C-alpha cells in the first residue's frame, strides 16, 4: 500500500492534496503542525512525506531533521511558498529528497511521489 503524509499549516492545502492522492490509490494522512506531523508519521509509517517549510511553532526544517533521524528511510519532499538558495541548501543538508514550490505542478508532484514510492518498494 502506498502511504503518504501531508503536512501543511493550511488545512485547505492538506485536504486538497489528500483528495488528489487518495484518488490515485494512496493512503493519505494529514497534519497541520510539526508536532502533530511527527505523531502521525510514527503511527502511519508512510513512504513519502510532503512537508511545508514555513509553519508556526515547529517549522518544516525541524520536522525534517526529526524525521530523518528517526526514520531515515522515509522520503521527504519539501513544499514551500518561497524558495531561496539558502533554504534549499539547508534542506538538502538535512537530507530532504526534493524541494518544490507553490503553486504546485500536480503532474510533476504525482510523478515524483510515485517514483519515490517505487524506489522504496524496490529496495525493500
Amino acid at each position, binding site marked *: 500500500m502506498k502511504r503518504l503524509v501531508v503536512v501543511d499549516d*493550511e488545512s*485547505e*492545502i492538506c485536504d*486538497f*492534496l489528500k483528495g*488528489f492522492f487518495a484518488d490515485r490509490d494512496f493512503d493519505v494522512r494529514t497534519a497541520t503542525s510539526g508536532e502533530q506531523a511527527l505523531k502521525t508519521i510514527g503511527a502511519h509509517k508512510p513512504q513519502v512525506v510532503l512537508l511545508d517549510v*514555513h509553519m508556526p511553532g515547529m517549522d518544516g526544517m525541524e520536522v525534517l531533521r526529526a524525521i530523518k533521524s528517526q526514520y531515515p528511510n522515509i522520503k521527504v519532499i519539501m513544499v514551500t*511558498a*518561497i*524558495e*531561496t*538558495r*539558502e533554504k*534549499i*541548501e539547508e534542506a*538538502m*543538508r538535512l537530507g*530532504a529528497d*526534493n*524541494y*518544490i*514550490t*507553490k*503553486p*504546485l*505542478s*500536480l*503532474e*510533476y508532484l*504525482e510523478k*515524483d511521489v510515485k517514483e519515490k514510492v517505487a524506489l522504496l518498494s524496490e529496495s525493500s
Partner: protein
Amino acid sequence: MSLYVKKRKRVLKKVLIGFSLFFVGSTAYVLFSSLTSRFFPYPFMGNPVFAVLITTLAALLTYKPLDYLMTQLFKNYLFRKKSYSHMALMDLAEELATILDLTELANLVVNTFGETLHLKTVALVIPSRIRDDYEIISAYGWNVSDCKRVRLPKDSPLLRMIQDGGPHVLVRDRALRTLDWQEANRLAHDFDSLRASWVIPFFAREEFVGVLTFSSYIPESIFDEGDFHFFREFAQEVAKCVRNALSVQELKLANQELQDVQSQLLQSIKIQAIEQLATGIAHEIHNPLTIISGKAQVLLLQKDRASYDERVEEVLKTIVKQTKRAADITKKLLMFSQSSGSPKEMLDLSQVLEDTIALVSYQTSLEGIEVTRSVAGALPPYYANVHEFREVFLNLILNAVQSIGSKGKIHCEIRYRCQDEILEISVSDTGKGIDPQNRDKVFNPFFTTRTNAVGLGLFVTKQIVHRYAGSIRVESRVGEGSLFIVQLPLMESSKRVPAEKSLPLPFLKQVESEASS
C-alpha cells in the same frame, strides 16, 4: 666632461678677474696721474708699473664701501616698493580668515602672492585627500595639467628638511649648499619639480599643513632676511586659514559620508520592508493560488476519463498559467529584496552583461536603440554577487536608454587591465548628456531630471560598486552623450576559488523542470 668644463670656467674667471684688475688699475692710474702730475711731479710716477699697482690697490680698498653704499641706496628704494606689497599681503591674510573653501582660499593666496611680488611661479602644496602624499592644490604661472602631475611623497627630502628645520623659509641654493652632493641632488629634484627657488612652510600650532613654493624672474637675491621674516609671519596667518579650510573640508566629507551611510540605511530598510512584504504576500497568496491552480490541474488530469469541451480545457489551462504568473510576481519581488544578502560566487562578468542586455533588448528594440558590447580578451573570474552586478549593468544601461529616449546607440565594454589588476566596465550612450552642474549629483539618492523616475538607480549602482572597493565616474558632453566608467580592483578573493565551495545542488534542476512544466 663636466669636470673639464668646470676647470675651463675657473680659468676663464681668473683671466677675467686679472683683466678687470688691470683695467681698473690703469683707469685709476690715468685719472690719478692726469690730475696730480701737473701739480706734484713725484719721481715714482715716472715708473708706470709701480704706479698702476698702487692705484689698483687703492681702487680695491675703496670698492667695498662704495658697493655697500650703492646697495643700501638700492635697497631703500626697493624696500619702499616691498613695503607696499607686504601691506597688500597682510591685508590678504586678514581677508583669508573669512574664506572656508580650500580651493578658493588656495587660489586667492597663490594669485595675490604671485601678482604683488611679480613672481614667475607660485604653488600651494597640501596633503592629498586620496593618496598618502602631497599635491599642488593651486598654482600661479603653471599649466593646469602640469601642476596636477606633480606629487611629493611624504618622505621626500624637501618635506623631511622642513619637518626637521621648522618654519624657516628655505632658499634653494642655500639649502643645497648645506648637503653633500647626493642629498643635494635629491633635494634639487624636489625644488625643480615644484619649480621653486623659495619654499615657505606652513605650520599651524606646530602642525605642518603645507608649503608655498615660488620662483621669480629676477635672480635670487631680491629677497633678504627682512623679507623672510615677513614671509614667516605671513605663513603663520595663512597656515591658520589653510588649517581651518582643511578642517571644514574634512567635516564636509564626513558629513557626506554620513549622508551616504544614512541613505544606504534608508535603502536597506526599504529593501527589508519589501522583503517582509513579499514574504508575507508569498505566504498568503501562494496557498490560495496552489488550491486554485491545483483544482484546475485536477480537472485537466482527469481529461482522459471524462470528455471535455475544448473551450473548458482552454480555460483550465489559462487558470493554471495565470496563477503561476501571479506567483512569479511575488517570487521576483523576493528575489530582488534578497539579492543583497545572497552569496557571492565566481562570475564571468561578460556573461552577466550579456544576460542583462538580453533582458532589456525588448525595450531597446522598441525605442530603436542599438546596444553593442565588446569584451577585450579573456576576463578573469570575478568573485561577486550576481544579482548585484546584474543590477549595476541594468542601471547603467537603463540610465543610458532614458538619456537617449529613442533612436541611438549604447556601447558596453569590459576590459581587464593587467598592470594594475583592474576590471573596467564602461557604458557610453549617444544621449542628451548631463549638465556640468548636475554631474556631481547624478549619484545622489533621489536625484533625477525625469519626472517619472525615483532617482535611485545610479545611487544604488554607486553603493554596490563601493561595496567592492571600486569607483564610478561619469564623463559627459551636453548634446553628445555620456560615458560611465566603473573600475573594480580584482580583490584577493577573486584570485582564488573560495575554500568553502558551494554545494552541488541536484534539486535545482528538478525545481527548474518543475517550474517550466
